[in-house]
């Protein structure tokens, strides 16, 4: 019997779940997230292992989803000193490297860069001869200034990465085994965004190592002697520790993705809308073929423009702790203020003075909470049936509107409801929601994040430009697919299980039909 344990570190709670090799849930526990993160992880692990009484030697994999990297960027803390080399002279000089980063973030990573001659045109021709001397000089300056990690970004490297690789060789002669990021492995077309993403990837090198060391330590402490460590990435799939060390930036945004994939998994729904109702916010996303639908807009991380693909999410300020304002002669107002998880102190049902959405569900008799301190009577005594009903209608309306925003057709869609605040949409309403074919609230819905982290798949993605003068369209698509598969394998997928799940073709405007941009994604079972 092989088992897997998944740990998800959220803003409020750290969850741990154990799945067996049939993907049955053997154990699930939740503790408060601690400031140092690691203590909470160890506590959650201990709790779930002890309560489920499993044989610890049967756990072959420990998967971690964490906000370490996102927090570091957002807080501008623990970021490494980055040196960025842009290969693109005589072009690109008009906008200096890192220029589009928020000034405090730029300072936090050292604002150290150089521009050297080289780079390629859209069809792979050289713009200029690559300047080896200037690159070596830049590396020497970086070393003397204490740069810890080097990012290399060349114009049109997603088409032709030759100069990036040559620069890598030269820089390692000067800087030894300092971590390096080649931009074509991180992002696609869009120089500034790809530069930013590469620089941030370098900046996370210490944070990633610390986080990984922490995970490995907690696995050791918990005597999980057979467990390999994995980290979750942006699309909800997993990556090996080596891959995570190289590409720590891929852990950003894995939180919401994990919860969506967990929700899909719990309900076997590969296509539908996922609604995650928290204490203060509700996040709505769409699952397509088992993966979160990706957003089309440029993604900002900590204020920095990058060209990452992130889940398409709608956030609504209405959660389980959201305040309800009953108004005489007017429709009630819902939120945006919320008592969050202080609900057990501030909410009417718990003896507080703030009317919350949870109070409404309790007061109308739609839900019960097993807590001696909680009494629905407190709500019923203070508010009329009419006022509570009006509030419930409004809450349901908000829910229906937010689902409607994510739908892409007029047909009714299935909705998976997860998150601790789901109580505010009563079961009695499920059958009559506008535009919604059914609502599924799976068992273990409050552990959707950790479960999502434990679904053992690894993925790879490629987004490149292919020259149709040199190959046919079919050959270009085949190349893209192969590159995606290779990436999935290096992330940790079992080669015999890898499949291409998505391809997208984008002709490039204003260029004579010879250049085409192809994006491909491949997924496989994680090789444990």
């Amino acid at each position, binding site marked *: 019997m092989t088992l897997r344990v998944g740990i998800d570190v959220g803003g409020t709670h750290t969850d741990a779940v154990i799945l067996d090799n049939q993907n049955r849930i053997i154990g699930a526990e939740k503790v408060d997230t601690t400031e140092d993160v690691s203590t909470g992880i160890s506590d959650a692990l201990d709790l779930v292992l002890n309560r489920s009484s499993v044989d610890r030697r049967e756990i072959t994999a420990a998967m971690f989803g964490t906000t370490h990297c996102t927090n570091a960027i957002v807080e501008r803390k623990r970021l490494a000193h980055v040196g960025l080399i842009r290969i693109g002279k005589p072009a690109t000089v008009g906008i200096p490297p890192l220029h589009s980063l928020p000034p405090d973030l730029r300072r936090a990573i050292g604002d150290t860069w150089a521009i050297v001659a080289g780079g390629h045109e859209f069809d792979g021709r050289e713009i200029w001869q690559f300047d080896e001397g200037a690159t070596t000089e830049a590396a020497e300056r970086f070393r003397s200034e204490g740069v810890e990690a080097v990012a290399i970004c060349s114009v049109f490297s997603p088409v032709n990465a030759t100069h990036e690789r040559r620069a890598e060789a030269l820089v390692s002669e000067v800087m030894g085994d300092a971590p390096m990021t080649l931009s074509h492995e991180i992002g696609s077309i869009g120089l500034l965004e790809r530069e930013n993403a590469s620089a941030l990837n370098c900046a996370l090198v210490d944070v990633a190592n610390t986080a990984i060391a922490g995970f490995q330590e907690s696995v050791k402490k918990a005597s999980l002697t057979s467990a390999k460590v994995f980290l979750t990435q942006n699309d909800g799939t997993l990556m090996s520790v080596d891959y995570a060390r190289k590409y720590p930036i891929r852990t950003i945004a894995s939180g919401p993705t994990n919860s969506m994939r967990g929700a899909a998994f719990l309900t076997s729904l590969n296509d539908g809308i996922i609604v995650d109702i928290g204490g203060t916010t509700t996040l709505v996303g769409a699952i397509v073929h088992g993966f979160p639908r990706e957003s089309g807009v440029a993604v900002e991380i900590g204020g920095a423009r990058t060209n990452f693909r992130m889940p398409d999410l709608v956030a609504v300020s209405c959660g389980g702790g959201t305040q309800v304002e009953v108004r005489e002669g007017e429709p009630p107002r819902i939120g945006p203020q919320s008592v969050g998880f202080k609900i057990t102190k501030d909410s009417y049902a718990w003896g507080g003075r703030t009317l919350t959405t949870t109070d409404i569900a309790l007061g109308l008799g739609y839900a019960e909470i097993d807590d001696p301190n909680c009494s629905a009577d407190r709500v019923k005594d203070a508010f009329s049936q009419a006022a509570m009903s009006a509030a419930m209608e409004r809450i349901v309306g908000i829910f229906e509107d937010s689902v409607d925003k994510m739908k892409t057709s007029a047909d009714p869609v299935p909705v998976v409801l997860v998150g601790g605040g789901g109580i505010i949409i009563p079961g009695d309403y499920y059958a009559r929601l506008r535009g919604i074919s059914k609502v599924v609230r799976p068992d273990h819905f409050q552990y959707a994040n950790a479960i999502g982290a434990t679904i053992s798949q690894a993925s790879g993605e490629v987004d490149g430009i292919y020259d149709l003068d040199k190959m046919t369209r079919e050959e270009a698509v085949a190349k893209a697919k192969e590159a995606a598969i290779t990436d999935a394998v290096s992330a940790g997928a079992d080669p015999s299980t890898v499949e291409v799940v998505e391809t997208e073709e984008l002709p490039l405007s204003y*260029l004579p039909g010879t250049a085409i941009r192809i994006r491909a994604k491949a997924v496989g079972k994680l090789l444990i």
Partner: protein
Amino acid sequence: MKVGAAEIEEVALGAAVLGTGGGGDPFIGKLLALDAVAKYGPVEMIQPEEVDDEGLVIPPALMGAPTVMVEKIPNGDESVGALRALENKLERKAVAITPIEQGGLNSQIPIAVAAKVGLPMTDCDSMGRAFPELQMTSFHLHGISATPMAMGDEKGNLLILETIDNVWTERLARTATVQMGGVALIAIYPMTGAQLKKACVKGSVTLSMDIGRAIQSARRKGENPIDDVVRLMKSKILFRGKITDLLRRTTGGFSRGEGKMQGLDEYKDQSLVVEFQNENLVAVRDGKVVASVPDLISILDLESGLAITTESLRYGNRVVVIGSPCNEVWRTPQALAAVGPRYFGYDVDYVPVEKLGS
């Protein structure tokens, strides 16, 4: 008035709406313009009437693929190089800079150039929107020659073109642009102040700033700017919906495509198709044409009111589509032959958007 950092941000937002999905994302152009005014000071904006009748006016612009522009960013000297090369050819110096296309990133290039060479910029352009080809300008309709024209790239190459007509200019310049790597900075349509006054589309820079300011103000207040945009552009809301299908294909060097949408709110049971080729060209709602080029069809994000370029359209985008009347200069039979839907290959006769079904 002075055009500085604040005005540049406003122009970028407004020009994106006027770009009707094309003209490229103004972001890079905006950074270049901001850099230029930071170094050289704000630009003086004047009305076309204020230009000396005999004075030389030159429009600078970028031509080529927006995709290349976001990757092979200019070095900032190319457009001044082209301007100087044209001045040398004409053996005259310019007294003013004029925008040629106030839709998309070409709203920013003239600001950057004017700042660097210390000349005023006129509050006008030659389109009132974005168009893909060099002869699609009010300058051309008034018989002004696009050449002599200068083209420059980041390597320092400079070309001077002199052609027999403006359609040849587009053909030859387009080929040179591809060889230069897909993007060239140009100085084109040299003209006198007198010619500018007769041929230009007036007030377009101010309009783009007004739209931009309306968007900023609404966003600050957490409100939707769509109503203000509609008022400023005298538009009609054509549709509110979600993108359910996107088809793109390349033919003859220009990407063509269509976006299909399912309706939201009051458009619930309706569907809309927008045909585009870099710019949005025809909008068809439930089988009937509700707007077509040269009128402006802009696709804006439903929540933020920000314009979405055709390259950025994605499955699932929640949008509002507005149709705005084009400048009068585009509504003559001669102009419609050059920029009407039939020129772009659609079997549709142009009807002004204000007259089409509501």
